[in-house]
């Protein structure tokens, strides 16, 4: 468990809200790989930290599940766009693992503009005894070479190397908000505010624009793409969400340009709760297919919704994440929190969903029992191997001892990024610059 004690406090909320400050340690994405053995985080400083699950130990079976740092590398550097006189942040917006096909691991990481394919591989042997260079790698003077020898591989301490294998750049005018690897294992999509591009993992100098919602006149722009993801099994299908609260399902077999969706998911607005903020809070911050490919989950500001792919007119299930904020939307608009982009995840069996909230709280909803729980990721409350206590937010009236009042919630502590182990009940929760890993109680 990574525990960084350095929390740079920035008093000016304006700076904090607009990401002007370089708080390089703030975790900006977190993702398990397909086996759950590895867990990657990306931060605002452009670094990727990969954690590996500890191998099972016979003497200490309870230690199974601990994740230790496996590799750390600088994925993106700050860049300067001289044409636009614009600084490109190094912040890692998303990490996606490729399914493992050999001993090495591959992941895609992206900042606002550039996607990179990284290979993470282990090395525990090194060749020794070259003829033309000495042990330090310097070229030897040919006149000193008097005999030929056969280089041999010598064991050495395990070294984990991360090498950038591909750089996919110059295809996005706007900020990349999501990337998704296709189930065909050959292509991926990168999505910015107005476009979705399709890439081949082997080809970096060209991509295909498959969705473009940019109007001819930008002043007519009223909607942006907020997230996109490939279907987990059907390699021709992908979904993208919009700032107007709708989700479009597209079939790449229909046309090269998927401007016309094949399905359009949208819930009619409830007139009783309409306000000036209706559109803002209905903007979808994350869309995720269920593992079985039957459902879509979307997160908007106050709720998380599960949609059946066969039912476009309304969500199958709607879960309130923090409905007590409904009366505070004006101040949340004022301090820009209303634009926070919360993500959401499925558990391995698609029966539980998880998403974040404020005050370092995160929520879990059991789809079968309809039970929900609020948990807190904080250093005070979560000593190693401590059991998380459910938290409760009290809305007005009398506050009980263990409850927290809405007014005392800390809106600077937000859990935007979470991930769930693909097979087990292990979750990773990014809370500002801390990463918390929780797992089911071990007997």
């Amino acid at each position: 468990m990574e525990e960084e004690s350095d929390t740079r406090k920035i008093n000016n909320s304006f700076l904090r809200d607009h990401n002007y400050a370089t708080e390089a340690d703030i975790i900006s994405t977190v993702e398990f790989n397909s086996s759950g053995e590895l867990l990657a985080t990306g931060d605002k400083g452009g670094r990727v930290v990969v954690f590996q699950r500890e191998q099972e130990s016979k003497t200490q079976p309870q230690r199974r599940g601990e994740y230790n740092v496996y590799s750390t590398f600088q994925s993106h550097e700050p860049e300067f766009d001289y044409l636009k006189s614009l600084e490109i942040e190094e912040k890692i917006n998303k990490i996606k693992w490729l399914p493992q096909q050999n001993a090495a691991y591959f992941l895609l990481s992206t900042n606002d503009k550039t996607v990179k394919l990284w290979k993470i591989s282990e090395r525990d042997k090194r060749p020794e005894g070259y003829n033309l260079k000495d042990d330090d790698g310097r070229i030897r003077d040919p006149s000193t070479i008097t005999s030929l020898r056969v280089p041999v591989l010598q064991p050495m301490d395990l070294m984990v190397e991360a090498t950038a294998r591909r750089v996919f750049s110059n295809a996005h005018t706007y900020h990349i908000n999501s990337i998704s690897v296709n189930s065909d294992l050959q292509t991926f999509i990168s999505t910015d505010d107005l476009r979705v591009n399709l890439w081949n993992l082997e080809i970096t100098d060209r991509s295909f624009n498959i969705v473009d919602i940019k109007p001819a006149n930008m002043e007519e722009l009223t909607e942006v793409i907020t997230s996109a993801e490939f279907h987990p099994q059907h390699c021709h299908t992908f979904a993208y969400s919009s700032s107007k609260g709708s989700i479009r399902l597209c079939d790449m077999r229909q046309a090269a340009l998927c401007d016309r969706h094949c399905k359009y998911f949208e819930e009619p607005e409830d007139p009783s709760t309409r306000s000036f903020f209706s559109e803002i809070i209905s903007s979808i911050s994350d869309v995720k297919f269920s593992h079985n490919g039957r459902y879509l989950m979307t997160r908007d500001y106050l709720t998380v919704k599960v949609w059946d792919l066969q039912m476009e007119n309304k969500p199958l299930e709607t879960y309130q994440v923090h409905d007590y904020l409904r009366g505070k939307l004006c101040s949340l608009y004022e301090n820009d929190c209303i634009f926070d982009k919360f993500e959401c995840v499925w558990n391995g069996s698609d029966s539980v969903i998880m998403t974040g909230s404020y005050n370092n709280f995160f929520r879990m909803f059991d789809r079968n029992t309809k039970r929900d729980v609020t948990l807190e990721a904080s250093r005070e409350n979560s000593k190693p191997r401590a059991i998380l206590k459910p938290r409760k937010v009290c809305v007005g009236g009398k506050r009980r001892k263990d409850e927290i009042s809405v007014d005392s919630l800390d809106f600077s502590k937000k859990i935007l990024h979470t991930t769930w182990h693909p097979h087990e009940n292990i979750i990773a929760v990014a809370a500002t610059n801390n990463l918390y890993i929780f797992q089911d109680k071990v007997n």
Partner: protein
Amino acid sequence: MFPKGTKRKFSDSGEEPAGGGGGGGEQGPAAPSAAAARALTSSYSLQRQSLLDMSLIKLQLCHMLVEPNLCRSVLIANTVRQIQEEMTQDGTWQIMTQALAAAQCPADRLVATEVLCRQTDPAAQAGQSPKPFSVVGLEEGYHSEEVVMEGEVETEVTMSTLSAVPPQLSSASYLAGPFGMGPCWEDEEDDGGCDEDEEEDSEECASEGEDGERDRLSPDSRTGEQVFGTFEIKHPAPPADPALEELFSDVDPSYYDLDTVLTGMQSAPKMGPYDLLENLSSHGPTALSSSSNCRSDLNELDHIMEIIVGS
């Protein structure tokens, strides 16, 4: 955007704030008495106004960035549009320039003034009841108290001389804002007419290209243009949508408030584009508004603004 020429039907029944509460929770039940209703509507209008102000600040800030968060900018711009739509529907938008006058008049007279209601009103179709104008007027009255008067009146005068006022318009109509001289109530008819003229004019002007367009714009619509220009910095701004011009045609109070808020300089409202405008222009408030002079000044201003905002 809105159908023109529809006659407004004014009802003085207890108003329910149309379109939901600004903050979500403050949307109370319809008050039984007219006074209570007015109070309710007043607070609603105030909230709406402050929301509008806040949104405009945010859009301005977005525009200062070379590459703003597009999603956020779009959502804020849509919110502004929505507020504008609602204010247009209930007439607030059109009569904002007469707000001070309204504040000085008894509410009953206002209600009876059919002239005010000549502007378009899709509210009736939308099934929403418009709010009493008096309340809005009062709100504006309060509003003007919050800001520093001296500088603003002066600036306001400068503004009105700089904006190429169509000859048939009396400059009084431009001065009739919250800080203005408070035109007598009888002016309304003229003003109402002028508003419409202005709108039509601007629509015609839109075809003349950017420069002509900008000359026609009041400085505040300029603000609006910049605000919406946020989305696209790479291309020259196309002629502004008349609806958008209209949208920003009366945001002075908010703008000055913004300045106060942003700069923390209560007594120095001359910050930002207005400041430039004044300094650039060699004409003082007394200078007559010669259209060509204005044009060159404004072009110069545009140029400098472009440099400043990095577009």
